[in-house]
């Protein structure tokens, strides 16, 4: 799966649709290691949906799946999310 690594910039459109605001500049804190990163900088793996991983400890931060009308989010790996730059 390493070859399919992207980063949060690639899901800017999907995140904007789900959250209703620009999210690549939002700061997320990893529930695993406590590192804080802007979502544009986190790793993204593309499969049936998208998996966002911490660039420091590789822990899963979030999972996103959409069918075009509905969206499913699993945000267990984010301790907090700060919106706004």
């Amino acid at each position, binding site marked *: 799966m*390493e*070859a*399919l*690594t*992207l*980063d*949060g*910039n*690639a*899901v*800017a*459109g*999907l995140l*904007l*649709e*789900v959250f*209703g605001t*620009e999210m*690549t*500049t939002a700061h997320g804190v990893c529930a695993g290691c406590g590192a804080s990163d*802007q*979502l*544009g*900088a986190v790793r993204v793996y*593309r499969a049936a949906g998208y998996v966002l991983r911490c660039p420091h400890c590789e822990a899963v931060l979030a999972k996103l799946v*959409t069918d*075009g*009308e*509905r*969206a499913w989010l699993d945000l267990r790996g984010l301790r907090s999310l700060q919106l706004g*730059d």
Partner: protein
Amino acid sequence: MEGTAVLGRLTWRVAEIADVRTETPTVKTLVLDVGGWPGHRAGQHVDVRLTAEDGYQAERSYSIASASDGSVVELTVELVEDGEVSPYLTEVAGRGDQMEIRGPVGGYFVWDPRVGGPVLLVGGGSGIVPLMAMLRQRAAAGDDVPARLLYSARAWDDVIYREELEAMRGGGLDVAYTLTRSQPDGWTGYSRRVDAELLRKVAQPDVARAFVCGPTPFVEAVASALVSLGHDPGRIRTERFGPTGG
């Protein structure tokens, strides 16, 4: 039920191909005319949606290559062999064809003139695309913030925007190339992979903002080399390119 869908806040707009430019043997620029385009910032993306006759849809995210200019949006697309979208965009699509785009999106990998300079841009392969949008915006705005581009490509024929970059040099902009696989006769540029030793020569000591874009291993190597040279990680913005399923 109607009205319950959470998605759809972003509008899909119809984009019509006004022109196609061949950049290299595997890279094309699509000049799109997008009605109602709100303008964009250098470094932002669009999502492109193609719909097949049977209704099958494929979406991809592409960096915008052009500076904001009315209803014109330019996308530079590299052919990914076995890809789903890029073979159509680079080999089939032509003037008058339509597609859907939404955006602009993204705020992380974006040139903000308020940050000042000097600015360092490091691009690998088609990672030059959003960096070119930044240089075009800088030129269009008459911005004299000192900027330096280090562009890594396999060979001289793989260098995208070659003539435009040559014409842009000067006025506070330095352009350096490194060709990693083959070099033309009499080549005086660099001919090695981008590492700490090369960045020590090329990067300004007091970089206010560095933008690094390219394939994932390239971006990781450049970003960590910059940090090892003492550059503040908080000033480095990265964008990793596919393979995205192309």
